[in-house]
Protein backbone atom coordinates (compact mmCIF):
# COMPACT_ATOMS: atom_id res chain seq x y z
CA UNK A 1 0.00 0.00 0.00
CA UNK A 2 1.34 3.41 -0.94
CA UNK A 3 0.21 6.02 1.52
CA UNK A 4 -0.31 9.45 0.06
CA UNK A 5 2.25 12.12 0.75
CA UNK A 6 -0.27 14.51 2.30
CA UNK A 7 -1.46 11.90 4.72
CA UNK A 8 2.09 10.98 5.67
CA UNK A 9 2.81 14.62 6.38
CA UNK A 10 -0.37 15.14 8.38
CA UNK A 11 0.18 12.06 10.50
CA UNK A 12 3.83 12.77 11.21
CA UNK A 13 3.35 15.11 14.15
CA UNK A 14 0.93 12.94 16.18
CA UNK A 15 3.03 9.87 15.43
CA UNK A 16 6.22 11.50 16.64
CA UNK A 17 4.50 12.77 19.76
CA UNK A 18 2.95 9.37 20.41
CA UNK A 19 6.30 7.62 20.08
CA UNK A 20 7.93 10.15 22.39
CA UNK A 21 5.12 9.63 24.91
CA UNK A 22 6.50 6.10 25.28
CA UNK A 23 9.75 7.59 26.50
CA UNK A 24 12.82 9.61 25.47
CA UNK A 25 14.10 8.84 22.00
CA UNK A 26 16.16 10.15 19.06
CA UNK A 27 15.69 10.60 15.34
CA UNK A 28 16.89 7.28 13.99
CA UNK A 29 15.02 5.29 16.65
CA UNK A 30 11.82 7.24 16.00
CA UNK A 31 11.94 6.35 12.33
CA UNK A 32 12.58 2.71 13.14
CA UNK A 33 9.63 2.73 15.54
CA UNK A 34 7.34 4.29 12.90
CA UNK A 35 8.35 1.55 10.52
CA UNK A 36 7.65 -1.12 13.17
CA UNK A 37 4.29 0.35 14.16
CA UNK A 38 3.06 0.55 10.58
CA UNK A 39 4.68 -2.77 9.60
CA UNK A 40 6.81 -0.87 7.12
CA UNK A 41 3.84 0.74 5.35
CA UNK A 42 4.58 4.30 6.44
CA UNK A 43 7.72 5.38 4.65
CA UNK A 44 9.28 8.64 5.62
CA UNK A 45 12.12 10.37 3.93
CA UNK A 46 14.41 10.23 6.94
CA UNK A 47 15.66 13.80 6.64
CA UNK A 48 12.16 15.22 6.89
CA UNK A 49 11.77 14.05 10.47
CA UNK A 50 14.28 16.53 11.80
CA UNK A 51 12.56 19.76 10.77
CA UNK A 52 9.40 18.32 12.38
CA UNK A 53 11.27 17.54 15.61
CA UNK A 54 12.74 21.02 15.60
CA UNK A 55 9.37 22.62 15.09
CA UNK A 56 7.95 20.62 18.00
CA UNK A 57 10.92 21.72 20.06
CA UNK A 58 10.39 25.36 19.19
CA UNK A 59 6.68 25.12 20.02
CA UNK A 60 7.59 23.62 23.38
CA UNK A 61 5.94 20.27 22.65
CA UNK A 62 9.19 18.41 23.08
CA UNK A 63 12.48 19.26 24.72
CA UNK A 64 15.86 18.22 23.45
CA UNK A 65 19.21 17.51 25.05
CA UNK A 66 22.50 16.55 23.50
CA UNK A 67 23.78 13.27 24.93
CA UNK A 68 25.96 10.40 23.89
CA UNK A 69 25.01 7.28 21.97
CA UNK A 70 26.08 3.83 23.18
CA UNK A 71 29.15 4.13 20.92
CA UNK A 72 30.00 7.58 22.25
CA UNK A 73 28.73 9.71 19.34
CA UNK A 74 26.90 12.94 20.12
CA UNK A 75 23.22 12.38 19.78
CA UNK A 76 20.24 14.64 20.30
CA UNK A 77 17.56 13.09 22.50
CA UNK A 78 13.98 14.29 22.56
CA UNK A 79 11.46 14.09 25.37
CA UNK A 80 7.77 15.02 25.30
CA UNK A 81 6.65 17.92 27.49
CA UNK A 82 3.34 18.46 29.27
CA UNK A 83 2.24 20.80 26.46
CA UNK A 84 3.28 18.11 23.98
CA UNK A 85 1.20 15.51 25.80
CA UNK A 86 -1.82 17.81 25.66
CA UNK A 87 -1.21 18.41 21.98
CA UNK A 88 -0.99 14.65 21.39
CA UNK A 89 -4.29 14.21 23.20
CA UNK A 90 -5.96 16.81 21.04
CA UNK A 91 -4.59 15.33 17.83
CA UNK A 92 -5.63 11.85 18.87
CA UNK A 93 -9.19 13.06 19.34
CA UNK A 94 -9.10 14.72 15.90
CA UNK A 95 -7.86 11.54 14.26
CA UNK A 96 -10.44 9.60 16.15
CA UNK A 97 -13.21 11.76 14.71
CA UNK A 98 -11.86 11.28 11.20
CA UNK A 99 -11.49 7.57 11.79
CA UNK A 100 -15.04 7.28 13.16
CA UNK A 101 -16.45 9.10 10.18
CA UNK A 102 -14.60 6.84 7.77
CA UNK A 103 -15.70 3.71 9.64
CA UNK A 104 -19.30 4.90 9.56
CA UNK A 105 -19.19 4.89 5.76
CA UNK A 106 -17.36 1.60 5.53
CA UNK A 107 -19.95 -0.21 7.67
CA UNK A 108 -22.76 1.02 5.41
CA UNK A 109 -24.25 -1.37 2.74
CA UNK A 110 -21.92 -2.65 0.05
CA UNK A 111 -23.25 -0.45 -2.76
CA UNK A 112 -22.61 2.62 -0.61
CA UNK A 113 -19.82 3.93 -2.76
CA UNK A 114 -21.93 3.73 -5.91
CA UNK A 115 -24.90 5.36 -4.26
CA UNK A 116 -22.65 7.99 -2.72
CA UNK A 117 -21.36 9.05 -6.10
CA UNK A 118 -24.89 9.10 -7.53
CA UNK A 119 -25.95 11.28 -4.64
CA UNK A 120 -23.21 13.76 -5.25
CA UNK A 121 -24.11 13.83 -8.93
CA UNK A 122 -27.75 14.68 -8.23
CA UNK A 123 -26.55 17.16 -5.66
CA UNK A 124 -24.50 18.91 -8.32
CA UNK A 125 -27.33 18.87 -10.82
CA UNK A 126 -29.63 20.48 -8.29
CA UNK A 127 -27.35 23.35 -7.57
Amino acid at each position, binding site marked *: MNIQKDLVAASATPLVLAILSEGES*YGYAIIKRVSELSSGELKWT*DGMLYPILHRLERNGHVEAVWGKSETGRSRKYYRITRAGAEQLDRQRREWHVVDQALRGIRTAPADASKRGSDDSKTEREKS
Partner: protein
Amino acid sequence: MTKDALLEERISEWREYFRRRQAVKPADIDELEDHLRSQVDALSEAGLDADEAFFVAVKRLGSMDSVAREFAGEYSERLWKQLVVAPGAEAASPVVQREALVAIGLAAGAAIAIKVPELFGVHFDGPDHNEAFYAHNAMILVLPFFAALFALKRGMRAAGWFALAVPFVAAALIMNLMPFAGISNNVERQTEILSVIHLPIGLWLTASLFAYVGGRWRSHDQRMNFVRFTGEWFIYYVLIALGGAVLAGFTAFVFRAIGFNPEPLIAQWIVPCGAAGAIVIGAWLVEFKQGVIENMAPVLTWLFTPLFTALLLVFVATMVVTGNAISVEREVLIGFDLLLVLVLGLLLYAISARDPQAPPRLFDRLQLLLVIAALVVDVLALWAITARISEFGFSPNKTAALGLNILLLINLGWSIVLYTRFLTGRSPFKALERWQTAYLPAFAAWAWVVVAIFPVIFKYQ
Protein backbone atom coordinates in the same frame (compact mmCIF):
# COMPACT_ATOMS: atom_id res chain seq x y z
CA MET B 1 40.52 0.14 8.35
CA THR B 2 40.69 1.52 4.82
CA LYS B 3 36.96 0.88 4.52
CA ASP B 4 36.43 2.98 7.63
CA ALA B 5 38.69 5.68 6.30
CA LEU B 6 36.72 5.75 3.07
CA LEU B 7 33.46 6.02 4.97
CA GLU B 8 34.86 8.85 7.08
CA GLU B 9 35.92 10.64 3.94
CA ARG B 10 32.49 10.20 2.37
CA ILE B 11 30.81 11.49 5.51
CA SER B 12 33.02 14.53 5.71
CA GLU B 13 32.32 15.25 2.03
CA TRP B 14 28.62 14.90 2.71
CA ARG B 15 28.93 17.31 5.65
CA GLU B 16 30.79 19.76 3.46
CA TYR B 17 27.95 19.75 0.90
CA PHE B 18 25.38 20.24 3.60
CA ARG B 19 27.32 23.08 5.17
CA ARG B 20 26.66 25.20 2.09
CA ARG B 21 22.94 25.16 2.82
CA GLN B 22 22.27 28.32 4.70
CA ALA B 23 19.20 27.10 6.55
CA VAL B 24 20.98 24.06 7.99
CA LYS B 25 23.24 24.83 10.91
CA PRO B 26 26.24 22.71 11.95
CA ALA B 27 24.35 21.37 14.98
CA ASP B 28 21.61 20.13 12.65
CA ILE B 29 24.22 18.49 10.48
CA ASP B 30 25.65 16.79 13.59
CA GLU B 31 22.21 15.42 14.30
CA LEU B 32 21.74 14.24 10.73
CA GLU B 33 25.21 12.71 10.79
CA ASP B 34 24.29 10.66 13.86
CA HIS B 35 21.25 9.48 11.95
CA LEU B 36 23.34 8.66 8.90
CA ARG B 37 25.86 6.68 10.95
CA SER B 38 23.14 4.78 12.81
CA GLN B 39 21.63 3.85 9.47
CA VAL B 40 25.01 2.84 8.03
CA ASP B 41 25.72 0.68 11.08
CA ALA B 42 22.35 -1.04 10.79
CA LEU B 43 22.77 -1.66 7.09
CA SER B 44 26.32 -2.94 7.57
CA GLU B 45 25.07 -5.43 10.15
CA ALA B 46 22.49 -6.53 7.62
CA GLY B 47 25.37 -7.42 5.31
CA LEU B 48 25.94 -4.40 3.08
CA ASP B 49 29.49 -3.18 2.69
CA ALA B 50 30.35 0.27 4.00
CA ASP B 51 30.10 2.00 0.66
CA GLU B 52 26.72 0.55 -0.24
CA ALA B 53 25.45 1.22 3.25
CA PHE B 54 26.51 4.84 2.98
CA PHE B 55 24.74 5.39 -0.32
CA VAL B 56 21.55 3.72 0.82
CA ALA B 57 21.60 5.74 4.05
CA VAL B 58 22.12 9.00 2.19
CA LYS B 59 19.32 8.14 -0.21
CA ARG B 60 16.93 7.40 2.63
CA LEU B 61 17.78 10.72 4.21
CA GLY B 62 16.26 12.42 1.19
CA SER B 63 17.75 14.85 -1.28
CA MET B 64 19.77 17.59 0.30
CA ASP B 65 17.73 20.22 -1.50
CA SER B 66 14.42 19.06 -0.13
CA VAL B 67 15.76 18.54 3.40
CA ALA B 68 17.31 21.99 3.30
CA ARG B 69 14.03 23.40 2.02
CA GLU B 70 12.18 21.83 4.94
CA PHE B 71 14.68 23.37 7.32
CA ALA B 72 14.29 26.71 5.58
CA GLY B 73 10.53 26.49 6.01
CA GLU B 74 11.04 25.80 9.67
CA TYR B 75 13.75 28.40 10.30
CA SER B 76 12.94 31.23 7.91
CA GLU B 77 15.00 33.65 9.99
CA ARG B 78 18.12 31.76 9.00
CA LEU B 79 17.74 33.02 5.46
CA TRP B 80 18.34 36.51 6.75
CA LYS B 81 22.01 36.61 7.25
CA GLN B 82 22.92 37.92 10.63
CA LEU B 83 26.04 40.01 10.79
CA VAL B 84 26.61 40.33 14.48
CA VAL B 85 26.48 36.79 15.67
CA ALA B 86 25.03 35.86 19.00
CA PRO B 87 27.45 34.30 21.49
CA GLY B 88 27.63 30.54 21.18
CA ALA B 89 26.84 30.61 17.49
CA GLU B 90 29.28 28.95 15.20
CA ALA B 91 30.79 32.12 13.76
CA ALA B 92 31.79 33.39 17.19
CA SER B 93 35.04 31.47 17.00
CA PRO B 94 37.98 32.61 19.13
CA VAL B 95 39.58 34.27 16.08
CA VAL B 96 36.48 36.32 15.37
CA GLN B 97 36.17 37.26 19.02
CA ARG B 98 39.78 38.33 19.21
CA GLU B 99 39.36 40.40 16.06
CA ALA B 100 36.29 42.02 17.52
CA LEU B 101 38.22 42.94 20.64
CA VAL B 102 41.07 44.37 18.58
CA ALA B 103 38.63 46.40 16.48
CA ILE B 104 36.79 47.75 19.51
CA GLY B 105 40.11 48.54 21.16
CA LEU B 106 41.35 50.42 18.10
CA ALA B 107 38.05 52.28 17.77
CA ALA B 108 38.37 53.32 21.40
CA GLY B 109 41.96 54.34 20.63
CA ALA B 110 40.77 56.52 17.75
CA ALA B 111 38.10 58.07 19.95
CA ILE B 112 40.67 58.82 22.65
CA ALA B 113 43.24 60.10 20.15
CA ILE B 114 40.87 62.79 18.95
CA LYS B 115 40.52 63.98 22.57
CA VAL B 116 44.22 63.87 23.48
CA PRO B 117 44.95 67.41 22.21
CA GLU B 118 42.47 68.67 24.81
CA LEU B 119 44.98 67.67 27.49
CA PHE B 120 47.37 70.18 25.96
CA GLY B 121 44.82 72.97 25.95
CA VAL B 122 43.75 72.62 22.31
CA HIS B 123 39.99 72.70 22.49
CA PHE B 124 37.55 71.36 19.96
CA ASP B 125 34.68 73.44 21.20
CA GLY B 126 34.15 76.37 23.52
CA PRO B 127 35.27 80.00 23.60
CA ASP B 128 38.99 79.46 22.90
CA HIS B 129 38.56 76.55 20.50
CA ASN B 130 41.17 75.85 17.89
CA GLU B 131 39.19 74.70 14.89
CA ALA B 132 42.19 74.88 12.59
CA PHE B 133 44.18 72.39 14.61
CA TYR B 134 41.42 69.81 14.35
CA ALA B 135 40.81 70.52 10.68
CA HIS B 136 44.50 69.93 10.04
CA ASN B 137 45.05 66.95 12.27
CA ALA B 138 41.83 65.01 12.76
CA MET B 139 42.61 62.52 10.00
CA ILE B 140 46.23 62.22 11.12
CA LEU B 141 45.05 61.35 14.62
CA VAL B 142 42.35 58.88 13.63
CA LEU B 143 43.39 57.09 10.43
CA PRO B 144 46.45 55.40 12.00
CA PHE B 145 44.03 53.29 14.04
CA PHE B 146 42.22 52.31 10.88
CA ALA B 147 45.54 51.45 9.26
CA ALA B 148 46.62 49.49 12.34
CA LEU B 149 43.45 47.38 12.17
CA PHE B 150 44.35 46.12 8.72
CA ALA B 151 48.09 46.01 9.28
CA LEU B 152 47.41 43.67 12.23
CA LYS B 153 44.86 41.62 10.37
CA ARG B 154 47.09 41.17 7.33
CA GLY B 155 50.07 40.36 9.52
CA MET B 156 52.21 43.17 8.15
CA ARG B 157 55.95 42.96 8.74
CA ALA B 158 58.04 45.67 10.34
CA ALA B 159 58.99 47.16 6.96
CA GLY B 160 55.30 47.48 6.14
CA TRP B 161 54.60 49.29 9.40
CA PHE B 162 57.39 51.74 8.63
CA ALA B 163 56.10 52.33 5.13
CA LEU B 164 52.67 52.86 6.61
CA ALA B 165 54.00 55.50 9.00
CA VAL B 166 55.52 57.55 6.17
CA PRO B 167 52.32 59.21 4.87
CA PHE B 168 51.15 60.00 8.40
CA VAL B 169 54.45 61.56 9.43
CA ALA B 170 54.60 63.49 6.16
CA ALA B 171 51.03 64.71 6.64
CA ALA B 172 51.69 65.73 10.24
CA LEU B 173 54.79 67.69 9.20
CA ILE B 174 53.09 69.39 6.27
CA MET B 175 49.93 70.34 8.09
CA ASN B 176 51.66 71.63 11.21
CA LEU B 177 54.82 73.26 9.86
CA MET B 178 53.33 75.14 6.93
CA PRO B 179 52.64 78.73 7.97
CA PHE B 180 48.88 78.58 7.44
CA ALA B 181 47.11 81.44 9.14
CA GLY B 182 44.31 79.32 10.51
CA ILE B 183 40.86 78.86 9.09
CA SER B 184 39.15 80.45 12.03
CA ASN B 185 40.68 83.83 11.31
CA ASN B 186 37.97 84.36 8.73
CA VAL B 187 40.46 85.36 6.08
CA GLU B 188 40.06 83.37 2.93
CA ARG B 189 42.97 80.98 2.79
CA GLN B 190 42.37 78.96 -0.31
CA THR B 191 45.50 76.80 -0.12
CA GLU B 192 44.82 75.90 3.47
CA ILE B 193 41.24 74.82 2.76
CA LEU B 194 42.41 72.91 -0.28
CA SER B 195 45.00 71.10 1.81
CA VAL B 196 42.42 70.22 4.45
CA ILE B 197 40.04 68.86 1.79
CA HIS B 198 42.67 66.87 -0.09
CA LEU B 199 44.51 65.44 2.91
CA PRO B 200 41.90 62.74 3.71
CA ILE B 201 41.86 61.70 0.05
CA GLY B 202 45.65 61.57 -0.09
CA LEU B 203 45.88 59.56 3.12
CA TRP B 204 43.04 57.26 2.11
CA LEU B 205 44.58 56.40 -1.24
CA THR B 206 48.04 55.84 0.23
CA ALA B 207 48.04 54.76 3.88
CA SER B 208 44.57 53.22 4.03
CA LEU B 209 45.02 51.43 0.73
CA PHE B 210 48.48 50.20 1.70
CA ALA B 211 47.20 48.86 5.02
CA TYR B 212 44.08 47.30 3.54
CA VAL B 213 45.93 45.38 0.85
CA GLY B 214 48.58 44.31 3.35
CA GLY B 215 51.36 46.08 1.49
CA ARG B 216 50.55 44.45 -1.87
CA TRP B 217 49.58 47.76 -3.45
CA ARG B 218 50.97 46.84 -6.83
CA SER B 219 48.32 44.15 -7.31
CA HIS B 220 45.44 45.41 -9.42
CA ASP B 221 43.04 42.88 -7.95
CA GLN B 222 43.92 44.05 -4.46
CA ARG B 223 43.32 47.65 -5.47
CA MET B 224 39.93 46.68 -6.81
CA ASN B 225 39.20 45.02 -3.48
CA PHE B 226 40.10 48.27 -1.79
CA VAL B 227 37.69 50.11 -4.08
CA ARG B 228 34.93 47.64 -3.15
CA PHE B 229 35.84 48.00 0.49
CA THR B 230 35.73 51.80 0.29
CA GLY B 231 32.20 51.78 -1.10
CA GLU B 232 30.92 49.45 1.57
CA TRP B 233 32.81 51.27 4.28
CA PHE B 234 31.28 54.57 3.23
CA ILE B 235 27.77 53.11 3.36
CA TYR B 236 28.40 51.61 6.80
CA TYR B 237 29.85 54.87 8.00
CA VAL B 238 26.77 56.78 6.89
CA LEU B 239 24.52 54.22 8.60
CA ILE B 240 26.50 54.43 11.83
CA ALA B 241 26.40 58.23 11.59
CA LEU B 242 22.61 58.11 11.28
CA GLY B 243 22.46 55.97 14.39
CA GLY B 244 24.82 58.40 16.10
CA ALA B 245 22.59 61.33 15.15
CA VAL B 246 19.62 59.58 16.74
CA LEU B 247 21.69 58.92 19.86
CA ALA B 248 22.77 62.57 20.03
CA GLY B 249 19.18 63.69 19.50
CA PHE B 250 17.90 61.60 22.37
CA THR B 251 20.82 62.65 24.56
CA ALA B 252 19.80 66.27 24.00
CA PHE B 253 16.15 65.46 24.60
CA VAL B 254 16.48 63.53 27.89
CA PHE B 255 18.92 65.96 29.48
CA ARG B 256 16.94 69.02 28.47
CA ALA B 257 13.90 67.37 30.03
CA ILE B 258 15.62 67.60 33.43
CA GLY B 259 16.96 71.11 32.81
CA PHE B 260 20.56 70.12 32.11
CA ASN B 261 22.42 71.57 29.14
CA PRO B 262 23.69 68.64 27.07
CA GLU B 263 25.48 70.71 24.40
CA PRO B 264 29.04 70.22 25.72
CA LEU B 265 28.46 66.49 26.14
CA ILE B 266 27.26 66.16 22.56
CA ALA B 267 29.62 68.59 20.86
CA GLN B 268 32.76 67.63 22.76
CA TRP B 269 32.30 63.93 23.31
CA ILE B 270 29.60 62.13 21.35
CA VAL B 271 30.22 63.77 17.98
CA PRO B 272 34.04 63.75 17.77
CA CYS B 273 34.58 60.45 19.56
CA GLY B 274 31.76 58.80 17.68
CA ALA B 275 32.95 60.07 14.31
CA ALA B 276 36.48 58.84 15.04
CA GLY B 277 35.50 55.46 16.44
CA ALA B 278 33.02 54.80 13.64
CA ILE B 279 35.84 54.92 11.08
CA VAL B 280 37.41 51.85 12.66
CA ILE B 281 34.15 50.08 13.57
CA GLY B 282 32.78 50.61 10.05
CA ALA B 283 35.97 49.14 8.59
CA TRP B 284 35.80 46.13 10.87
CA LEU B 285 32.13 45.50 10.09
CA VAL B 286 32.76 45.65 6.36
CA GLU B 287 35.75 43.34 6.66
CA PHE B 288 33.81 40.95 8.86
CA LYS B 289 30.68 40.86 6.75
CA GLN B 290 32.60 40.35 3.52
CA GLY B 291 31.03 37.31 1.92
CA VAL B 292 28.20 37.21 4.44
CA ILE B 293 26.06 39.99 3.06
CA GLU B 294 25.59 41.25 -0.46
CA ASN B 295 27.62 44.34 -1.29
CA MET B 296 25.46 47.43 -1.16
CA ALA B 297 27.50 49.85 -3.29
CA PRO B 298 26.85 47.99 -6.58
CA VAL B 299 23.14 47.84 -5.77
CA LEU B 300 23.04 51.61 -5.30
CA THR B 301 25.08 51.97 -8.48
CA TRP B 302 22.60 49.92 -10.41
CA LEU B 303 19.79 52.01 -8.99
CA PHE B 304 21.34 55.41 -9.60
CA THR B 305 23.22 55.01 -12.87
CA PRO B 306 20.07 55.58 -14.97
CA LEU B 307 19.05 58.54 -12.82
CA PHE B 308 22.42 60.25 -12.99
CA THR B 309 22.63 59.59 -16.71
CA ALA B 310 19.27 61.31 -17.11
CA LEU B 311 20.39 64.20 -14.91
CA LEU B 312 23.57 64.80 -16.90
CA LEU B 313 21.85 64.51 -20.29
CA VAL B 314 19.07 66.90 -19.28
CA PHE B 315 21.63 69.27 -17.82
CA VAL B 316 23.74 69.33 -20.99
CA ALA B 317 20.61 69.80 -23.10
CA THR B 318 19.47 72.69 -20.90
CA MET B 319 22.86 74.32 -21.19
CA VAL B 320 22.80 74.01 -24.96
CA VAL B 321 19.27 75.37 -25.23
CA THR B 322 19.67 78.29 -22.81
CA GLY B 323 23.30 79.01 -23.66
CA ASN B 324 24.09 79.58 -19.97
CA ALA B 325 27.66 78.78 -18.98
CA ILE B 326 28.78 77.26 -15.69
CA SER B 327 29.66 80.00 -13.24
CA VAL B 328 33.12 79.75 -11.76
CA GLU B 329 32.66 80.10 -8.03
CA ARG B 330 34.34 77.86 -5.54
CA GLU B 331 31.16 76.09 -4.45
CA VAL B 332 30.17 75.51 -8.06
CA LEU B 333 33.59 74.15 -8.97
CA ILE B 334 33.59 71.84 -5.97
CA GLY B 335 30.05 70.77 -6.78
CA PHE B 336 30.92 69.86 -10.34
CA ASP B 337 34.07 68.06 -9.28
CA LEU B 338 32.05 66.08 -6.76
CA LEU B 339 29.48 65.28 -9.43
CA LEU B 340 32.15 63.98 -11.77
CA VAL B 341 33.87 62.03 -9.00
CA LEU B 342 30.49 60.52 -8.19
CA VAL B 343 30.02 59.48 -11.80
CA LEU B 344 33.46 57.93 -11.70
CA GLY B 345 32.37 56.15 -8.51
CA LEU B 346 29.26 54.82 -10.27
CA LEU B 347 31.51 53.55 -13.02
CA LEU B 348 33.96 52.00 -10.56
CA TYR B 349 31.31 50.18 -8.53
CA ALA B 350 29.56 48.96 -11.63
CA ILE B 351 32.92 47.57 -12.74
CA SER B 352 33.70 46.17 -9.28
CA ALA B 353 30.53 44.09 -9.18
CA ARG B 354 30.57 42.97 -12.78
CA ASP B 355 31.65 39.54 -13.83
CA PRO B 356 34.46 40.35 -16.28
CA GLN B 357 33.55 37.26 -18.32
CA ALA B 358 29.92 38.23 -18.89
CA PRO B 359 28.95 39.47 -22.36
CA PRO B 360 27.86 43.10 -22.88
CA ARG B 361 24.42 43.92 -21.59
CA LEU B 362 22.01 46.83 -21.79
CA PHE B 363 23.35 48.19 -18.52
CA ASP B 364 26.82 48.48 -20.08
CA ARG B 365 25.44 50.69 -22.84
CA LEU B 366 23.74 52.84 -20.23
CA GLN B 367 27.01 53.06 -18.34
CA LEU B 368 28.78 54.17 -21.50
CA LEU B 369 26.15 56.83 -22.06
CA LEU B 370 26.66 58.03 -18.49
CA VAL B 371 30.41 58.27 -18.98
CA ILE B 372 29.99 60.15 -22.26
CA ALA B 373 27.58 62.60 -20.62
CA ALA B 374 30.04 63.05 -17.77
CA LEU B 375 32.83 63.71 -20.24
CA VAL B 376 30.75 66.42 -21.92
CA VAL B 377 30.05 68.04 -18.55
CA ASP B 378 33.73 67.77 -17.69
CA VAL B 379 34.69 69.52 -20.93
CA LEU B 380 32.14 72.28 -20.25
CA ALA B 381 33.50 72.77 -16.74
CA LEU B 382 37.05 72.81 -18.06
CA TRP B 383 36.06 75.40 -20.64
CA ALA B 384 34.58 77.64 -17.97
CA ILE B 385 37.65 77.26 -15.75
CA THR B 386 40.20 77.93 -18.49
CA ALA B 387 38.21 80.96 -19.63
CA ARG B 388 38.36 82.27 -16.06
CA ILE B 389 42.03 81.49 -15.71
CA SER B 390 42.99 83.22 -18.97
CA GLU B 391 41.09 86.29 -17.81
CA PHE B 392 42.14 86.48 -14.14
CA GLY B 393 45.20 84.23 -13.90
CA PHE B 394 45.78 81.16 -11.78
CA SER B 395 44.28 80.98 -8.29
CA PRO B 396 44.70 77.94 -6.04
CA ASN B 397 41.03 76.97 -6.29
CA LYS B 398 40.85 77.25 -10.04
CA THR B 399 44.14 75.42 -10.48
CA ALA B 400 43.00 72.59 -8.20
CA ALA B 401 39.73 72.35 -10.13
CA LEU B 402 41.61 72.49 -13.43
CA GLY B 403 43.94 69.69 -12.36
CA LEU B 404 41.16 67.43 -11.15
CA ASN B 405 39.08 68.06 -14.26
CA ILE B 406 42.00 67.18 -16.50
CA LEU B 407 42.62 64.02 -14.47
CA LEU B 408 38.97 63.09 -14.85
CA LEU B 409 38.98 63.98 -18.53
CA ILE B 410 41.81 61.54 -19.19
CA ASN B 411 40.18 58.83 -17.10
CA LEU B 412 36.71 59.23 -18.59
CA GLY B 413 38.03 59.64 -22.15
CA TRP B 414 40.05 56.44 -22.07
CA SER B 415 37.19 54.67 -20.28
CA ILE B 416 34.93 55.55 -23.20
CA VAL B 417 37.45 54.09 -25.63
CA LEU B 418 37.78 50.90 -23.59
CA TYR B 419 34.04 50.60 -23.04
CA THR B 420 33.35 50.98 -26.76
CA ARG B 421 35.98 48.38 -27.55
CA PHE B 422 34.38 46.07 -25.04
CA LEU B 423 30.89 46.60 -26.40
CA THR B 424 32.09 45.91 -29.92
CA GLY B 425 33.91 42.81 -28.71
CA ARG B 426 37.39 44.06 -29.46
CA SER B 427 38.80 43.99 -25.93
CA PRO B 428 37.92 42.20 -22.70
CA PHE B 429 36.14 43.92 -19.85
CA LYS B 430 39.17 43.33 -17.68
CA ALA B 431 41.01 46.05 -19.63
CA LEU B 432 38.57 48.65 -18.34
CA GLU B 433 38.90 47.37 -14.79
CA ARG B 434 42.66 47.46 -15.07
CA TRP B 435 42.64 50.99 -16.43
CA GLN B 436 40.67 52.16 -13.42
CA THR B 437 42.86 50.44 -10.86
CA ALA B 438 45.98 51.62 -12.66
CA TYR B 439 44.64 55.16 -12.43
CA LEU B 440 44.19 55.22 -8.65
CA PRO B 441 47.79 56.35 -7.93
CA ALA B 442 47.21 59.36 -10.22
CA PHE B 443 44.42 60.55 -7.93
CA ALA B 444 46.58 59.87 -4.88
CA ALA B 445 49.50 61.79 -6.34
CA TRP B 446 47.30 64.73 -7.29
CA ALA B 447 45.80 64.90 -3.79
CA TRP B 448 49.28 65.02 -2.28
CA VAL B 449 50.37 67.69 -4.76
CA VAL B 450 47.45 69.86 -3.67
CA VAL B 451 48.18 69.18 0.01
CA ALA B 452 51.93 69.72 -0.06
CA ILE B 453 52.93 71.70 -3.14
CA PHE B 454 50.05 74.11 -3.69
CA PRO B 455 50.62 76.07 -0.47
CA VAL B 456 54.25 76.60 -1.43
CA ILE B 457 53.53 77.55 -5.06
CA PHE B 458 50.75 79.92 -4.11
CA LYS B 459 52.58 81.30 -1.07
CA TYR B 460 49.92 80.21 1.40
CA GLN B 461 47.29 82.55 0.01
